[in-house]
């Protein structure tokens, strides 16, 4: 199963959904497709599509997907990694009205450089990534040192 997630941002991401529709039509994708489509209005034929899933359903989809294709939202990416799946990322771009800035593009490039995600920079690259996808072990989640230090700081304010 391929799970596609566009996140909860208020702007739509129809461009990604049109690409998925094309991939299904041209049989680059031949397995079940489930899509979390947010505010996007394009309906992908032959796919199960819902604007949002609740937290548990979303996690179940991440867990059972063979491949995850997502926008460059930190939650989508890190949740995929926490389930051991290296996601294929298509960043939202400001010029298409998909986000308020291009920070997703720079974030994607940085993570791709670190080998944490696959960056589908073009439709052809997306095709290539899908055709050659092999699951790779992902790094274990970073220990939450920040939470501990912040808790210590908050506690120090009580006594301050």
């Amino acid at each position, binding site marked *: 199963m391929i799970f596609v997630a566009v996140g909860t941002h208020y702007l739509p991401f129809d461009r990604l959904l049109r690409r998925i529709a094309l991939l299904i039509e041209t049989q680059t994708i031949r397995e079940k497709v489930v899509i979390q489509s947010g505010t996007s209005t394009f309906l992908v034929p032959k796919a199960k599509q819902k604007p949002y899933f*609740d937290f548990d359903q979303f996690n179940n989809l991440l867990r059972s997907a063979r491949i995850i294709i997502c926008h460059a939202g*930190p939650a989508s990416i890190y949740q995929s990694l926490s389930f051991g799946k290296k996601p294929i990322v298509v960043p939202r771009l400001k010029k298409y009205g998909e986000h308020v800035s291009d*920070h997703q593009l720079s974030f994607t490039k940085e993570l791709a450089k670190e080998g944490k995600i696959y960056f589908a920079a073009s439709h052809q690259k997306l095709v290539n990534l899908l055709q050659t996808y092999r699951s790779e072990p992902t790094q274990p989640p970073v220990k939450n*040192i920040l939470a501990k*230090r*912040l808790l210590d*700081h*908050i506690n120090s304010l009580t006594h301050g």
Partner: protein
Amino acid sequence: MKLCLVTSAGGHLYQLWQLSPCWKNNKRFWVSFAKPDVHSLLKKEKVYYAIYPESRHLLNGIRNFFLAIKILAKEKPRIVLSAGAGVAPPFFLAAKLMGIYTIYIEPVDFMVQPSLTGKIVYKLVNLFLVQNPRQLKFFPRASYWGSTL
């Protein structure tokens, strides 16, 4: 110690949620938006709803400032904590005026350029945290204590 957790939906909420070790044993309430992931993740939490949309929306920023005064005066938190986005500056400003301690965490995905929220609140908050040492380039007086993700 009562905490006020202010957050936009999506990754901002998710990053603040990852900090649960530092808020789960404290009295708290949230300020966010009526979005599906907020309803799902915060279903057992006390939530006030801010005015939406908030991103780069000056009029709603002003409305949220007056809403912040009302909420903070009623709840009297000791700390206001946020990882953005546009809902944070009005609440930080109100908190500052009311003498409430403020903590901001720059989201992890702004590695190559600073976020607009970060730029607005940098000189306003008591504690400004980045999640990647590279972000110190934009906010030299910030602290890096690790990452939420």
